[in-house]
């Protein structure tokens, strides 16, 4: 075990990690400048995970947030989330998610399932009702489907299109990105809710407010906000890394 961990940290990887952290921060800030509704601040982390392995990916993630914390203290307490993202990217890499090309139907499936669940999730929240005792009840699946049939069909089509045109042959990477995003949303919520009262000081706070207004608790609102933004963001990041590794000559992928 310890030997394996050590093997991940060759000199090349030790040199790559600072560059990856700088990529995370530089692109993270660029995205803010372009006012895009994503974070894209873990491309470097995913890259190290993909090239070197889970432990190097985890270290890259954790250090990104701790170092970013020197400028933006909000990032620091989430270092463990970033570490898990890097770790999962490393596992994905070990499974060949960044090397193998997926069949296009898989990408279509991943995209469709993703947008479908997202839609269901948002509709369920926005149709929740609170009774007098403060108990929140959610509508049943059957009610939702019958009431919003057209919306669901459109969602599946949009998802399939995203899968076909955006993920293309990166279906495996996209799939791992989705999983990673869901995990990230779940594990970051407690810290966001407890330490920061559920806010990030950025645009996504609107979502938290919406969920709070629909009667959800602080923790679940934050989780819900994460569930909307994180999977998409991580899917994109995994995709970008897949693209990068495909356009990179083999000699530069050496560890």
């Amino acid at each position, binding site marked *: 075990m310890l030997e394996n961990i050590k093997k991940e940290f060759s000199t090349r990887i030790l040199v790559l990690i600072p560059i990856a952290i700088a990529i995370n921060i530089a692109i993270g800030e660029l995205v803010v400048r372009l006012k895009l509704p994503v974070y894209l601040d873990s491309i470097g982390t995913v890259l190290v995970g993909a090239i070197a392995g889970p432990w190097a990916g985890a270290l890259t993630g954790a250090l990104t947030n701790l170092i970013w914390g020197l400028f933006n203290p909000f990032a620091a307490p989430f270092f463990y989330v970033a570490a898990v993202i890097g770790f999962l990217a490393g596992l994905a890499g070990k499974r060949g998610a960044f090397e193998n090309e997926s069949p296009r139907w898989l990408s279509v499936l991943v995209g469709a399932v993703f947008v479908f669940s997202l839609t269901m999730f948002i509709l369920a929240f926005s149709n929740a009702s609170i009774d007098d005792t403060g108990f929140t009840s959610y509508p049943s699946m059957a009610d939702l489907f019958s009431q919003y049939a057209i919306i669901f069909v459109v969602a599946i089509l949009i998802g399939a299109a995203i899968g076909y045109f955006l993920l293309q042959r990166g279906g495996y990477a996209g799939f791992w990105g989705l999983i990673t995003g869901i995990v990230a949303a779940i594990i970051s919520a407690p810290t966001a809710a407890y330490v920061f009262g559920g806010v990030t000081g950025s645009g996504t706070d609107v979502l938290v407010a919406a969920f709070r207004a629909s009667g959800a608790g602080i923790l679940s609102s934050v989780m819900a906000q994460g569930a909307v933004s994180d999977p998409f963001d991580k899917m994109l990041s995994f995709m970008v890394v897949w693209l990068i590794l495909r356009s990179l000559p083999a000699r530069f992928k*050496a560890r």
Partner: protein
Amino acid sequence: MAIIDLRNVTYKYPLTQESALKNINFQVNEGEFVAVIGPNGAGKSTLCYTVAGFVPHFFKGELSGTVEVAGADSSKSNLHEWVLNVGLAFQNPFNQISGAKYTVFEEIAFGLENIGVPRDEMIPRVNDAMKLTGISELADRSPYSLSGGQQQRVALTSILVMHPKVLVLDEPTSQMDPIGTREVFGVIRTLAEQGMTVIMAEHKVEWIANFADRVVALHEGQIIEDGKPQEALTSDVLAGKGFGISRYTSVARKAKETGLWKKDKLPVTLEEAVEGFAHV
């Protein structure tokens, strides 16, 4: 006795088809200053990396033949021991800045810290090395704030301070102006006279002719010429293969065809050319 001894060395980078070095036989004596010339892709850098131990230890790939430096066999050594004998500085100075240090002085001390030189020995060594290469006044600057030529001097100094027996330099003056180039060649010449062995891949033939003891010409991974600078640099073997050739050599070669150049030897430097034409 030869301090560098390469026998039948053939090397192929991983994932490539063609060998970058083909059956190289190359011996260098202690205190010799050997320049390696060749067109782009000839294998100069690969030869440098081989002497410096990075081929095959860092690059992996397939190496056959034997590489010995100072009596040690490369295939039986570790890279971290090898670099104590053989110092390497290369072309792009920016990538040679460690990034872990805030001043030039600390940057140069980086290698000494790594190999465990005690602090009270470290400081005079850094000072001496900086004086040698003429960068003492840069000591407190940030390495990132320097010009390309200054950074190249820092990279060279960072290796010299480690007191290697063999110094391998891959186009170390590419970003320097003529004045800087002259100074650095002068420093290297002095070091060679004090007994350091120097291998330098370089395009600037006129400087080579003035300072090196010997020239090795590489072409498509093979040594096609090896001899005194004056002879090697003007050799007909090099013609038409994309070697950088001194303009004085080209002019004299043309002049020889028309009978204007009477000497046997062709010139490389301005002085030689002036002297040769003076007999006309």
